[in-house]
């Protein structure tokens, strides 16, 4: 197998073995968890900062601007400078706020996105936990974030924040459905809920190609619904700065605001990762049947890069949406979900089942 050079499973196992051999099993577990935690924290910070930078550059180019270009070459250190600024900013206490919930909310939001990242396979053998119900876990965990948003809106004791929080509640409850159903469509095709197995099933062709029309429709629906779930793009009603100033995080400042900010970008990264895993073959390289030489060249690129590349393309797509479209109104948002996405989705699921039953897929 060509992948073997990049297969990290044995590497991981050797570390695991080494720790358990030398330490009591309890401490070995603690050390492992710490290592993974620190690694993810670093990854999280780097990806978050990079995405903020990328978003600013992408929107700048779309808008005929240059974007950040002062701190460092091409402004690459701009987001780091911004982050340092946010760290040093005064945290303005809100006297009439519900202090406990107000302080808790940003952590819930950020922890929810943290937890979701754990199940994502970044490469062969490169994931923290490989649950047999991985998709289920990701869905469940990523929708926890809305609790943080609701708490933030409620506890700020600000009218705009409350409206924003309520909107976000209605929005996420509805769109969760479409995200789930479009995922189920792929589960039907893959026959497994384990993320690593879903990726493995795409060895001979990514689902977006092998799944015919239903997979493509599912992808589009997933993109729309997950953009809505992350409160981005044309669905950023919870923030809607032209209506609600800043929605649920109006009253937050300093590092707590940074948490919300980072969580938004991480959520975007997570949904893009899931889209990559489910539809675009995860870390699988691009293979075209019959072109042996081409396939071999593709194999040389490490799976992690394949994975990141695909994810970034999906993220770019989301940014493109965001910087093109006007925002929807709350009733239209719900109409879009219940009148268009859900029926199409159910129909699509049946279609997919049919495709799988009749063995029409490749």
């Amino acid at each position, binding site marked *: 197998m060509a992948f073997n050079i990049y297969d990290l499973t044995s590497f991981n196992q050797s570390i695991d073995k080494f720790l358990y051999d030398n330490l009591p099993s309890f401490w070995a577990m603690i050390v492992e968890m710490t290592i993974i935690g620190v690694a993810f924290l670093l990854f999280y910070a780097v990806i978050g900062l990079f995405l903020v930078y990328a978003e600013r550059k992408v*929107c700048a180019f*779309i*808008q*005929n*601007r240059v974007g950040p270009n002062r701190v460092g070459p091409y402004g690459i250190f701009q987001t780091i400078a911004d982050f340092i600024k946010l760290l040093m900013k005064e945290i303005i206490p809100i006297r009439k706020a519900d202090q406990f919930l107000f302080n808790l909310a940003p952590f819930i939001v950020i922890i929810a996105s943290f937890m979701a990242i754990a199940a994502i396979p970044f490469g062969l053998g490169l994931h923290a936990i490989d649950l047999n119900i991985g998709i289920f876990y990701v869905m469940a965990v990523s929708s926890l974030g809305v609790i943080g948003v609701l708490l933030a809106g409620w506890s700020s004791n600000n*009218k*705009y924040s409350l*409206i924003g929080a309520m*909107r976000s509640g209605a929005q996420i409850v509805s769109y969760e459905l479409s995200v789930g159903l479009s995922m189920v469509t792929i589960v039907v095709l893959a026959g497994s809920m384990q993320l690593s197995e879903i990726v493995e099933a795409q060895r001979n062709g990514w689902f977006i190609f092998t799944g015919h029309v239903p997979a493509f429709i599912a992808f589009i629906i997933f993109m729309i619904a997950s953009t809505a779930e992350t409160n981005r793009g*044309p669905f*950023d*009603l919870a923030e*809607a*700065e*032209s*209506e*609600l*100033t800043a929605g649920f995080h109006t009253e937050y400042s300093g590092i707590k605001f940074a948490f919300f900010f980072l969580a938004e970008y991480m959520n975007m990264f997570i949904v893009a990762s899931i889209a990559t895993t489910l539809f675009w073959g995860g870390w699988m390289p691009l293979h075209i049947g019959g072109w042996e030489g081409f396939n071999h060249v593709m194999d040389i690129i490490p799976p992690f890069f394949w994975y990141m590349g695909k994810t970034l393309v999906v993220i770019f797509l989301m940014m493109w949406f965001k*910087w*093109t*479209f*006007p*925002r*929807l*109104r*709350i*009733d*239209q948002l719900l109409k879009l979900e219940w009148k268009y996405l859900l029926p199409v989705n159910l129909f699509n699921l049946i279609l997919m089942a049919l495709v799988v039953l009749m063995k029409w897929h490749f």
Partner: protein
Amino acid sequence: MEDLIITGPGIQDEEYIVNMGPQHPSTHGVLRLKIALKGETVERIEPHCGYIHRGIEKMCERLTYQQMIHLTDRMDYLSAHINNEAVCLLVENALQIEVPERVKYIRTILDELTRLASHELWWCAFGMDLGALTTYFYGLRDREPILDIFEETTGARLLQSFNVPGGLMNDIHPNFQKRVKEYITYFRKKLPEYDELLTGNVILQERTRDVGNLSLEDAISWGVTGPSGRASGFACDVRKHHPYSAYDKVDFNEILYTKGDSFHRYDARVREMWESLKILEQLIDNIPEGDYAVKMKPIIRLPEGEYYQRVEACRGEFGVYILSTGDKWPYRAKFRSPNFSNLSAINKMAAGFKIADLVAIGGSLDLVIPDIDR
């Protein structure tokens, strides 16, 4: 705290009072709207003005007619040149001075450029109100060359103060005609983009169609003029019905719609940009030779009496009323600002719609707050 309670029929149960403004991203300035909400639905709106009141009318009572002009710039700063022109036309008509044809042509060209610049800014701000942030930069990008044209000829980008009673401050810059022609070709290419990006967009259509309808009767009784009034079918274009400067020599259409919803107000403005281009094309090559101003006495005294002059500013009918006692300054000056009347109809339009619609309606009215408060 009393101040925060909405007046009128009294606060009802389950009503949620939100103060939109004076500092709010979508009121485009320091306008304060007190809104009674039921859920997301707007029940009543009570506009509160006066946060940027500068007493321009009072100040005018101690300024000569030449000096007054620079204050009219600062009311509706986006149609500065048109406001200037209103005062100048009033003085010229009162003194029965015939300004040279050249002045009329140049004034009309600058008027239309102002209108284009203003509508472009409105377009981008409207997109931003609806959450399409990219439109903002496209609009500003296309407005930039107009401001350059202004800067080259008048010396200022926004508040030109280029009109003086009897003519203009200066002759046009030698590059003026060339630049305007270049701009017309440039903008004819860019304007379809506006339609592709925003007008046709299904989200915009959904957001604006049948939102904030204003009937013809209401438009007339609230005095809603300009593109907003014409969207309701109110034929109120001063350029067409009471032509001034060189408007009687050009051929253009008055954009009239019937429904008066946000989309028609939007579309009326976009179509008006095409008409402005048409007017510019007709005039730019035909500027007659002549003086750029007639000689005026250093001190202008209007004969005793009342004077009124109206012009079509970018947002509607702008009127100047002056009561003169024969002194070198007016006894009383009053400006009829289009935005004030347009704003007054907002309760009629937005009640019963959602907050997001209120933002869209406010955007489609194209309010400029300093013009409301003066």
